[in-house]
């Protein structure tokens, strides 16, 4: 039963390795993959592929976009990531076995896997890095297997290095250096010939820099080419590269140690492997700390749910508590989409005005998709469009490809805007999305709206977004004079626009601005009813002495407010006032107004 062939054992080992990697990637990082996927787009279009592949490093970039299109679901992303890592391990193990049979250098093939494991869930990592890595190692593997004279091999390796640079970028340097190290270790005659491929790769680097293909010399020369050009590359990117020549250099000494019979040699093997395990474990722990923070994982999941419009699930997910302003912002978006913002805004710990109107004056691209969703929910097509546009621009700058999620939003906003500009732009984006695998159906569903105002106006969402554009102009103008809010017109999204505005005032504790906005909205006939609005008006009345009788506040709210006032007055001197009031009044605006920031609000 246990008498398995070497091949079977090997297959089982790799299957086990793959399964373990898949489970780890899926369970720990599953939602990172769709998050990464949305910032790249692969189009099934020969012209587009050829145009991109013709650029220096373009072939690897096209391969990356091809792979990443399947990251649309957590399981498929984890599956592919595990496959790439297993492939890395298999490639390294098999090549090293060829270099030095029976080397026992288990850790040498584990090292590149460990180095690249966290890179695959790094938002700033460009996946063409792993494609290029595999191509470089594959080429090295080929030269390990192919015989011939040193001069001929060196010359063909030089051509291969130059071609690899053109196809996949500076990974060619890693290939050339690894080959040189390997030949040096072999100690054959003519080993200096193998400086030629290194020279060829470096010549390509200089040419790439000179022609501006990689921007900076650093990017033309190092793994920084496979990282967000606007960010500092993670140390992992360097580690993956260094693992290549190090593996080639270390395999023979390790094999010799393994083969040695003496107890001292065995001890040395154990020591080396223990040191390697320790190094990998330390690095993994560091990576885990950085890449597996709880709030990041929750954010990735919320983002995934947002993309699918699973607003109820977003609300449920946040029921256990939000960790930061961004989570709060996403929850507020979900509540707005469900028309429950005013009703539930103070039933969970808010993050002040930032939780509803997050500051994006620094053009942080990370925020744009969330902002776009929030403003689309609030019926503000122009900001939903602007933020979607900015995120798409960032994807183009960082990855050289579009952000399909934002492109879909641009289709929605352009169709809602209408006119020649809106429809023609929407058609351009629709035809691009129709050439993708996973967005084509949704994109096509918008075709029927093109140059068809009646269809747009008849559509529940697009029609309301279009109708509400005039209201947004009123809201902007009302920043100078709230009385202008009387110009708001009722439509399916007007209530959300007003809720977004009024809840913002409440979160900011701007009761004067809130009261003025309420007056404007009442005059326009678009004032939604919510208990928190009544409570806020009563607070305003109590503070300013204004009579709030004409605002239609319910008797129950008034009684509750009076009870709140008298309870607070009776217990004013108590240190635990916030805590004891939370038991009865947690979840009310009165409680938020008085205690927010001191004590988390309870569930109503």
């Amino acid at each position, binding site marked *: 039963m246990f008498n398995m062939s070497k091949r079977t054992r090997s297959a089982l080992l790799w299957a086990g390795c793959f399964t373990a990697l898949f489970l780890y990637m899926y369970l720990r990082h599953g939602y990172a993959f769709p998050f990464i996927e949305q910032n790249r787009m692969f189009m099934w279009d020969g012209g587009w592929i050829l145009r991109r592949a013709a650029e220096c490093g373009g072939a690897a970039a096209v391969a990356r976009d091809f792979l990443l299109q399947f990251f649309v679901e957590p399981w498929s992303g984890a599956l592919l990531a595990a496959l790439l890592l297993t492939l890395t391990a298999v490639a390294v193990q098999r090549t090293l076995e060829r270099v030095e049979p029976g080397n026992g250098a288990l850790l040498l093939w584990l090292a590149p896997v460990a180095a690249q494991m966290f890179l695959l869930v790094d938002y700033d990592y460009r996946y063409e890095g792993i494609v290029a890595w595999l191509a470089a190692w594959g080429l090295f593997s080929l030269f390990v297997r192919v015989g011939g004279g040193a001069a001929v091999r060196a010359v063909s390796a030089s051509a291969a290095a130059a071609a690899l640079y053109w196809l996949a970028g500076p990974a060619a340097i890693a290939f050339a250096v690894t080959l040189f190290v390997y030949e040096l270790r072999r100690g054959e005659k003519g080993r200096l010939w193998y400086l030629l491929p290194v020279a060829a790769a470096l010549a390509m680097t200089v040419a790439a820099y000179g022609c501006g293909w990689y921007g900076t010399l650093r990017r033309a020369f190092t793994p920084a080419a496979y990282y967000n050009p606007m960010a500092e590359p993670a140390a992992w990117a360097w580690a993956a590269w260094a693992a290549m020549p190090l593996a080639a250099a270390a395999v023979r000494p390790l094999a010799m140690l393994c083969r040695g019979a003496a107890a001292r040699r065995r001890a040395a093997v154990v020591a080396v492997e223990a040191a390697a395990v320790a190094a990998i474990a330390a690095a993994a722990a560091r990576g885990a700390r950085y890449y597996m923070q709880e709030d990041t994982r929750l954010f990735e999941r919320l983002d995934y749910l947002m993309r699918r419009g699973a607003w109820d699930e977003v609300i449920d997910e946040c029921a256990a508590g939000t960790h930061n302003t961004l989570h709060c912002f996403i929850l507020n978006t979900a509540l707005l989409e469900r028309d429950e913002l005013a009703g539930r805004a103070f039933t969970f710990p808010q993050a002040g005005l930032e939780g509803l109107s997050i500051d994006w004056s620094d053009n942080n691209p990370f925020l744009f998709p969330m902002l776009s969703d929030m403003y689309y929910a609030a019926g503000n097509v122009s900001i939903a469009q602007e933020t979607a546009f*900015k995120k798409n621009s960032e994807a183009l700058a960082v990855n050289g490809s579009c952000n399909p999620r934002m492109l879909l939003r641009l289709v929605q906003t352009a169709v809602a805007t209408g006119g020649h500009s809106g429809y*023609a*732009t929407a058609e351009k984006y629709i035809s691009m999305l129709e050439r993708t695998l996973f967005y084509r159906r949704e994109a096509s569903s918008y075709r029927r709206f093109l140059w068809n105002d009646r269809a747009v106006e008849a559509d529940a969402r697009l029609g309301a977004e279009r109708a509400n554009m005039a209201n947004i102009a009123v809201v902007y103008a009302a920043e100078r004079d709230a009385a202008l809010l009387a110009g708001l017109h009722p439509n399916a999204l007007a209530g959300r626009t007003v809720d977004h505005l009024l809840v913002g005032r409440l979160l900011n504790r701007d009761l004067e601005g809130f009261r003025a906005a309420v007056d404007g909205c009442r005059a326009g006939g678009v004032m939604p009813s919510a208990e928190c609005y009544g409570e806020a008006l009563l607070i305003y009345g109590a503070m300013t002495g204004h009579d709030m009788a004409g605002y239609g506040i319910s008797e129950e709210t008034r009684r509750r407010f009076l009870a709140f006032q008298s309870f607070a007055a009776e217990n004013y001197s108590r240190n635990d006032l916030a805590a004891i009031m939370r038991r009865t009044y947690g979840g009310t605006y009165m409680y938020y107004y008085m205690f927010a920031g001191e004590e988390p609000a309870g569930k109503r």
Partner: protein
Amino acid sequence: MRRIRIYFVMLALSALCACGGEGAVTVSDTAPRIFPDYAGVTLPVNIAPPNFRLEGIHARARATLEADGERIVVSARDGAFRLPRRGWRRLCAAAAGGEITVTVETLGRDGIRYAPFVIRVSEDAVDPYMVYRLIEPGYETWGEMGIYQRCLESYREDPVIETSSAGYGCVNCHTFCAHDPDMMLFHMRQAHPGTMLLRGGRIERLNTATSGTLSPAVYPSWHPSGRYIAFSVNTTKLITLPDGNNRVEVFDSASDVVVYDTERHEIFTAPHLSRGDRFETFPSFSPAGDRLYFCSADSVEMPARYKDAHYSLCSVAFDAASGRIGTEVDTLYNARTAGRSVSFPRVSPDGAFMLYALSDYGSFSIWHRDADLRMVDLRNGREVETAAINSPEAESYHSWSSNSRWVLFNSRRIDGLYTHVYMAHVAEDGTLSKPFLLPQRDPDFYRTFMKSYNIPEFVRGRVSVPQRKIVSAAEDNEAAGVVFRVQE
């Protein structure tokens, strides 16, 4: 052996079927719809092949282009025609001053032979290069942009400077002295800020901010002598509008016109070019260098009254020998009486015509759908008909070729969002031809291209300063300061 013979017979039959399946051809009396629309346009004799595709047809097709005994036949598998460069050259040479007749037919069972259309070929050559910036079409996004040069005789495009090489700041406002590729300037913002002056291979980095000016130098115009450069200095802001018509508004809340003396490292202005109660901007020297044109509007509260800013077209005399700005301001277009707003005045190098953009209000006409190009014959003051080059979408930034026979300009006519470059021929009497879209190697290029062409400028040759040299100069050279004075 028998099996092989059967395979051969089957192969031969399939080949026969493939060749003989064209059936009867229907003759249509209408010309095909093509993109880009090159039917009836006038092309310069030295332009790159104008590749095009049949709109909505992705079938096998054939185009026959004929002119004066020369003939090329181009086949397309998917309705997209890529013309051979040598054949196109021969055809242009034969058709110079005349026409190329293009006959298109779709192949296959339901083939259609369309009515032919013509492409006129002008003997007037166009400058071999154009320089432009590629940017995202709207909002403030400086992710990645660059200034590029494109050979108009081929499709070759090279970067002059890309922000990916220079710290991802903004690069803008490139301009040349009399179309000379060795005399160029542009600004860098955020990363290594300054004005980069490239003259004969030498690179100078200037800090044009002074205590007496509103801002560092902005919109430039180089004096033909090469010594002076007029700039505007502006306090500019961008707002997003909840408006389906114009989605963005860019406006100045203050602006003046100044002149930089490259020899004395001095910025100077005159009181009537920097009035507190007016916005002066878009300076432009006449080709002779004796007049300085600019736009000027009554200052209004911004952004509240951005629609009330109407810019007039004015000019003052300029004496290059003494470096003095004239004191008398001429008004060529009076916005107070005419009610609209002028931007980007440009005089043709032969001094015959003035081309400018006219919109309902404001100065940033590229974001105004109502913006059109207008032209005046400066020899007689007559307004020249420009309907041939305008569209319902924005037409704005424009540039003259060095021989004054071509204009290139930005237009948003394709989709209302992305600006593309169009060129039109200008006859000696000012008659404008139907404009054509900048040809690309791939006829479908514009369908997936996600950038806007910005500030296209004709240049007489290639900008030869390598990018790395510009970047090094920006990174290593301290920006030279300038002094400021107001002319008495």
